[in-house]
């Protein structure tokens, strides 16, 4: 059964990625994913304040996920709600396994992600942008974190649900973040009901799709130096 926007079951929405878009940040990225538009800025490693939250063993990650009030059809209250706090927490944990935080004790690495246009899958787009921004900031990482949403809608197991599919009656939304090299999952949430077999298929779809995202991330990072590459080569 065809999806509402004509995509195949394992097809992603059109994605654009750009790195180094916020000059004053240590690292930054902009990602357009379908209708989603996401800015990520990284500041740090810097002094960790308040001091009692600092760790003498590693850098503390502060991930701030916020949606702009105009990013959704009905104005969103600017005060950070439970959903944003939850996304911030799980995303920070997703990135922590990738970053060599032990190299920067007593510091904080602040990642701010602002959603300026939202249409399902913002937390995965935000993670992808955050990962690019961290790489742009020169923060040592084990791997880029690639993320994608998989799930079920209208009886089909699909990759990258859009808003319509998310609102379907039998919809299941599973955002997944993966360290592509090792295929380790660092973020996994589920909203809905699946059988075990369906879940196993979704997991495979997620890992496959995240590899495509990883390639795009790599391209975006190299693109910053591309023109010079062509000259040199």
């Amino acid at each position: 059964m065809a999806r509402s926007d004509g995509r195949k079951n394992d097809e992603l929405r059109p994605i654009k990625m750009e790195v180094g878009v916020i000059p004053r940040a240590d690292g930054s990225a902009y990602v357009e994913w379908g209708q989603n538009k996401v800015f990520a800025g990284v500041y740090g490693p810097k002094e960790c304040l308040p001091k009692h939250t600092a760790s003498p063993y590693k850098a503390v990650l502060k991930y701030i996920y916020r949606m702009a009030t105009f990013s959704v059809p009905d104005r969103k209250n600017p005060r950070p709600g439970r959903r944003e706090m939850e996304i911030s927490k799980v995303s920070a944990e997703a990135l922590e396994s990738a970053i060599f935080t032990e190299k920067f004790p007593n510091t904080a690495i602040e990642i701010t992600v602002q959603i300026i246009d939202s249409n399902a899958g913002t937390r995965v787009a935000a993670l992808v942008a955050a990962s690019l921004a961290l790489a742009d900031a020169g923060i040592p990482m084990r791997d880029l974190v690639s993320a994608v949403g998989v799930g079920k809608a209208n009886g089909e197991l699909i990759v990258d649900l859009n808003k319509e599919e998310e609102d379907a009656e039998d919809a299941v939304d599973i955002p997944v973040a993966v360290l592509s090299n090792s295929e380790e999952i660092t973020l996994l949430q589920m909203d809905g009901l699946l059988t075990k077999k369906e879940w196993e298929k979704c997991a495979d779809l997620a890992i496959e799709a995240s590899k495509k995202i990883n390639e795009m991330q790599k391209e975006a990072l190299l693109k910053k130096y591309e023109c010079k590459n062509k000259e040199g080569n």
Partner: protein
Amino acid sequence: MRKIVVPGEVITTERKKTRDHVFIKEGKILSDCVGLLNEKPDSVSVIPLGGRYVAQENDIIIGVVVHEVFSGYLLNINTHASSFLAKRDLDFLLKLGDIVSVKVISVNELREVDVSFPRGLNGGEIIDVSPVKIPRIIGKEGSMLNVLKNGTGCVVVAGRNGRLWVKDGNTVLLRETLALIDRESHTDNLTDKVTKFLEERKPKEKKTSAKEIAPKSESADEVEKGMDN
């Protein structure tokens, strides 16, 4: 031109000595940052293209006095914590806002830095650059730095923490040249490109003024020679 690698990219599965910015996982050597691959027959490292300054022993850096305590001064050295300079290492007094070049003596496990061997830098201004570009700005045995000094007529002291202290000469041209180096730091033959860039922009009158400034640049060389101790 060197290959640019990204975090998590597999560099090699051969057994080699690992140097900066690489790590081993399951028998493979991977890069931990976006940078230029520096692979040799027996070792491998990655030269990062971005990142904040990480203090290391024996680095010469430029600090600004931000606080005075009984026994010394706290200097801002462009890291997350201030560094400490003991008064007993100085034979002159400093005040808030003074600029000094110092050498990193020790870095503890919390990356707190102790510095010594201070040299006062009077007047001039500080230009901030990305710390990872400083080795390129200095060049092999100071070659690029000499090109910059001669081409702009400025006195330049380069600190590993991403700060350049400059005085006199054409600082506007110097900033433009630094921007060029920043953009093209990953390409080859940069020293030649910079020399050409400065030649094109050097008006003939400036050549005489560069000679007048020459005596002062000798004292900067003395400062640098002193610091290399």
